[in-house]
């Protein structure tokens, strides 16, 4: 089948690829660009582990067709750290023990990143709401919420 051209920016870098029309953004990121930090859980918008920012907004990349990303800017988990320096949220997740199997973590970090960008001082309910589209089967969420909270308190996860 003929292919559709997708030219877009991912984590600040320009990419150009040709994909079949029915390819999902999730598949383009993982299979074509090798950005396998973004995971597939359900493929149906329920679990959020495929969350990326598209033009600054959180979307489930399993529900976006790759051609829809043409001309857009995407942020994936790989774009959160700068070089060897982890993002404060990533630091906090490690320090607070908010990661167990880690499958949900990329999506939750992107959701948390979006939350804090728009609301630097969220309360507990805001945090719960902000990650309500992300399922975690391991942690019970408490540590995740504490980790996000520790960043909002300006402690950036460095204190105990």
């Amino acid at each position: 089948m003929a292919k559709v051209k997708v030219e877009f920016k991912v984590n600040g870098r320009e990419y150009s690829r040709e994909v079949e029309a029915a390819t999902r953004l999730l598949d383009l990121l993982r299979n074509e660009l090798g950005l396998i930090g973004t995971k597939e859980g359900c493929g149906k918008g329920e679990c959020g582990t495929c969350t990326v920012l598209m033009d600054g907004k959180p979307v489930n990349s399993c529900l976006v067709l790759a051609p829809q990303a043409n001309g857009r800017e995407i942020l994936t988990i790989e774009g959160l750290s700068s070089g060897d320096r982890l993002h404060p949220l990533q630091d906090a997740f490690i320090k607070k023990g908010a990661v167990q199997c880690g499958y949900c973590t990329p999506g939750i970090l992107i959701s948390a990143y979006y939350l804090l960008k728009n609301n630097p001082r969220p309360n507990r309910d805001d945090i719960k709401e902000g990650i309500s589209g992300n399922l975690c089967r391991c942690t019970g969420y408490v540590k995740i919420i504490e980790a996000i909270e520790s960043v909002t308190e300006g402690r950036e996860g460095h204190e105990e």
Partner: protein
Amino acid sequence: MIIDLGYAAPDSLQKALQILKEDPSCKVLAGGTDLLVKFYDAREKMGNVLDISRLEELKGLEIGKDKIFLGSLTSHEQIYRNPQLQKIVPFLCRAAKSVGAPQIRHQGTLGGNLANASPAADLAPPLIALDAVVFLAGPEGERSFKLADFFTGPGKTRKNPDEIISGVEFALPKGDFRGTFLKVGQRRALAIAVASLAIALNFQDGVVKNIRLAAGSVAPVPLRARKTESILEGQKLAGLPLDKAADQLKKEASPIDDIRGTGDYRSQVLGNLLRKGMYELLSQEGVRENG
């Protein structure tokens, strides 16, 4: 101009309509939150995709002196976060906020919510209660329907396959207007309604006026409950016949059993939502029982 690559993202509504006219079987794609779930198992069967998500013509959100127009690409998040809408029709924002989770609210659109025509579509009840009109753009020009008459069955509307929903419009509420939207789901986030109810009315001189009730998930379509409305219309706020109205509302609905609840349960919930919603409106500030 037929889609040759299986995908087209035209830059004008006119071009999109032209494509649809030539191939009415192609799938219109807005936010994709319904469409991509539907074709999860068989994306290759999706066929040609007409991506309308870039059409500027469908993006407006105009709040005028008498009317409010919401373009079909308006997202749930945009409705929920709009400060003017929060002031004028907070219950519509509440409905938009109740949709899915942040990702779904950013992706999912008003037009998709209505075109998908789920009996559980959360924007339908408040918009029906606002007596909204839905606009369709087609090859022969524009048509419009009262939203209350737009849905014809689960997944079915009066829209032709070669038409695109351009938006909805409703009159700016006047006088002592009140509205509420209540939704019961199985959990607090990512919950499809087990039953939902929107109420819009005026409290005028201690009397209920212009009441409109619309319920979700309790009938094959989002349901405007006119018989129940007539029981409450014109009644004094002191001593509203709520039991009678709740009984009528249950009769007007025809909920089915499914994975989210039984028909009996939905019916019971619906009656309770009416009581709860009316109490909520009555207990809001500034309600006077005798004018």
